[in-house]
């Protein structure tokens, strides 16, 4: 077991983990952050996408110990003070989800995409979401949601509470 200390959705956490534990398993099973889900075992689907220090990563693709000392934001920490992130709002507005299973990862990736490129073209959106699979929507309304978010305050917003903003516990 290895001790790790990190910030998840604005809260400082500390746990003993097996060195082989994937970040996604740590988030789900030890922290109860079940908003982040697992869709495959080959890092193709992107359902488990979270932000590590503000940049999207597939949390099945790194070990929990690699997150030691870092800041993780999951879908559960994206809204601030009860206000949905503009990308979350856009997915609802544009019907960018059906079963919702890919949605946490799709939203986290979209947030990152808009941070890198605040006003992407349709092609840039499609390429930027290539690592996230959805089986329900045919992507049509996901693309629209990202476009909508770009026009409605989602551009360049990382979202979520960061360690500096919350009082030390």
């Amino acid at each position, binding site marked *: 077991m290895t001790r790790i200390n990190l910030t998840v959705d604005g809260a400082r956490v500390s746990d003993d983990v*097996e060195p*082989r534990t994937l970040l996604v*398993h740590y988030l*789900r099973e030890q922290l*109860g*952050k*079940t*908003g*982040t*889900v*697992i*869709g*495959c*075992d*080959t890092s*193709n*689907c992107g*359902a488990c996408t979270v932000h590590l220090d503000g940049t999207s990563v597939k949390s099945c693709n790194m070990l929990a110990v690699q997150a030691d000392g870092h800041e993780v934001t*999951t*879908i*559960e920490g*994206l*809204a601030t003070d009860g206000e*949905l992130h503009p990308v*979350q709002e856009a*997915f*609802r*507005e544009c*019907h960018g*989800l*059906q*079963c*919702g*299973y*890919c*949605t*946490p990862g799709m*939203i986290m990736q979209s947030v990152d995409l808009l941070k890198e490129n605040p006003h992407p073209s*349709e092609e840039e*959106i*499609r*390429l930027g*979401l*290539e*690592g*996230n*699979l*959805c*089986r*329900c*929507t*045919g*992507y*049509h*309304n*996901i*693309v*629209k949601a990202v476009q909508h978010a770009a026009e409605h305050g989602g551009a360049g917003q990382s979202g979520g509470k960061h360690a500096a903003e919350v009082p030390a516990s």
Partner: protein
Amino acid sequence: MTATQERPAAEIGRDRRRKEDQRLITGRTRWTDNIVLPGMLHLAMVRSPFAHARITAIDTSAAKQATNVVGVFTGADFGESLGVNINAWPITPDQVAPVHSPMPTDRVAFAGEVVAVVVARSAAEARDAAELVDVDYDELPAALDLKAAAADEVLAHPDLGTNKSALWRFDSAEAGTGGNVDEAIAKARTDGIVIEREYRQQRLIPAFMEPRSVVVDPTGEQLTMWSATQIPHILRFALAATTGVPESKIRVIAPDVGGGFGGKLQTTPEEWIAWAVARRLGKPVKYTETRSESLLSGHHGRDQWQKLTLSAEKDGTVTGFKVELLADLGAYVSLVGGGVPVLGAFMFNAIYKFPAYQFNCQTVLTNKTWTDAYRGAGRPEATFAIERMMTELAAELGVDPLEIREKNWITHEEFPFTTVAGLEYDSGNYEAATARAKELFGYDELRAEQRRRREAGDTVQLGIGVSTFTEMCGLAPSRVLGQLDYGAGGWEHASVRMTATGKVEVAVGVSPHGQGHETAFSQIVADRLGVPFEDVEILHGDTQISHKGLDTYGSRSLVVGGEAVVRAADKVIEKARPIAAHLLEASVDDLEFAGGRFTVRGTDQGVGIGELATAVFTAHNLPDGVEPSLDSDATFDPVNFNYPHGTHLCAMEVDTETGQVRMRKYTCVDDIGNIINPLIVSGQVHGGLVQGIAQALWEEAVYDDAGTLVSGSFVDYLLPTAADTISFEIDHTTSPATTNTLGTKGVGEAGTIASTPAVVNAVVDAVRHLGVDDITMPCTPERVWRAINAAGSGGTTEGAAMPHFEAGGAAGNQETPGASSTQGGLQ
């Protein structure tokens, strides 16, 4: 009594944002795998690596000794209490079907079958210990290729003596619904046109995003199963029927379910094993599959050879259509099993007035993963066959593919129309949908561009594909299902409960997994009862809350389940009427109900339905003999199927030098009757389109010659991404259904059913002038290139998959250019 109450705007037809979304976009969901119970144990399955083998020994001792392992079980540890996985649709009385034990003890029949289960305190420890289970196998020859299996060359189940499971036939002359197809074909051979083709419906994997998961809690009086399933009610029935637990002691819950597409219309070995282990140990257990396990052992779809003969007069009037199918069941006859191709049996004649029709389907057992419903289930296969054939007929005659369709289709004046397959189509307007689609698509302009490119000899050619589909959905009239020997009915149930505070709870028997029932049904109830949309709560997926239902598949939830909701709501109004009259001191005959209020005709006196709910709750002042409840149930059994249709137009660009294909434009105009929520409908259409397009261009479950699934991960099974697809242009024409109050038709499967032939027709159209009349699905660049360069249909995928695992193995396994893939699968 309040004199005024704000009347909500009409909800039906409104693009309401979904109620479901708040929890899904914030991660506050309850997927089955999220559930954690006190003392819960975790399961890992030990699976056969062989397609067909005798189990000679299973040594579990090392696994049992591993740290934190609680138990290791094989089928022998449970015996009959393990139950069996049932087939609910024996399509013929003499159907040959092997017994399907969830965990066989003597012989495995496909690679991925479970032979032992490990129970441990954590999922990781269970998986580690599963590696320690030592199973000895004697490998047996495996029946893999569908055509070879149909010839009984190798037996998938030696004890059965044959791989042929059932031969199902419909003949219009015998049924009295049309003429003799063989005579029509014979006549056409002398003085008409006969088109003969053989098409491959490749094997597909539903590939829902949420892997299947099951939790069983045996504590308490009821045994509770949470499962990522489309069918909680059928699951409860099957558990009771096969494991000896009374149905009243079983509670099944389908919580948030992450997609299904038919893939979660199953009762699975993993559910049965979890059930048995939890009962044995008296502790809650969880099993969640990996993606690889999901692709390997969750049921697959399609997998047919279609031999097709279409006869026509020289002017293009079709005189007969004969269909001979081989359908691969895989290793076992699954829940719906051979019923999947039979659901296509009535649809090969599609929107056309064929005078003679015959359908023959031989279902075949092989040593591959079992097959069952996948979005469309039987109808995509039928639509592909006829829409490819009508296009081939048009090519033979040198006319536009829309012209040949128009010559043969049912005109809108002819509805209701009884088809050669014996179905009565209630409504439709193929002319209107086609005209609108042509206009939106820019059909004439694209045809002109196509001509220009051909004349210029462009290396990138343009093809235009047409699919004028219809389908039968809304499963289904129970009487018809009975005639077809299906084991259950097709009714649906709903309960409307008026709470004391005037809120409305609606429990429905259909069980959503992404469709948006909570939103659409709330809209229906809001309009019907005149209450705010926000005041309606839709409850589903828990057999203790929605105690009756037949669940969600076959585009049935709105057209069958929604009608049950309407009828239950109407009963609430009728129960409220005498109470309203009593409170208003008026005669029942003088009351009108509108906008959620009963009013006395000609006065401003009125009472709202919410106030009546409160009055019933207190029950202080009710008329004599009236029960203090407005709550009402309804069970609706449709009298007919439901027949959406549409015209889909696809433009594909094909690089004739590389075989690369690119979708340029896709337009569809679907007639799905009246629309409850256009936003939800658009999502269903888009998603359906991509699944059908993916069959045409990308997806195939591929086995090697040892019976190993080589497309067993998302690295190898090609689901399309956002970067592979385009945005679509969709619209609707409206011919309301006449068989339900709201005039709705199903939309869940329409896109998938329609799009596959539209895409393949477009790809073939782009290169037909180069001598190509078919390209096997999926139309990979390699196949397209081969078809152009050797005028074949492009070869099989089996060979193409080899180099991934066998260096240098490619050439030997490739078909030689020019050989038709219709010679069979593995060569």
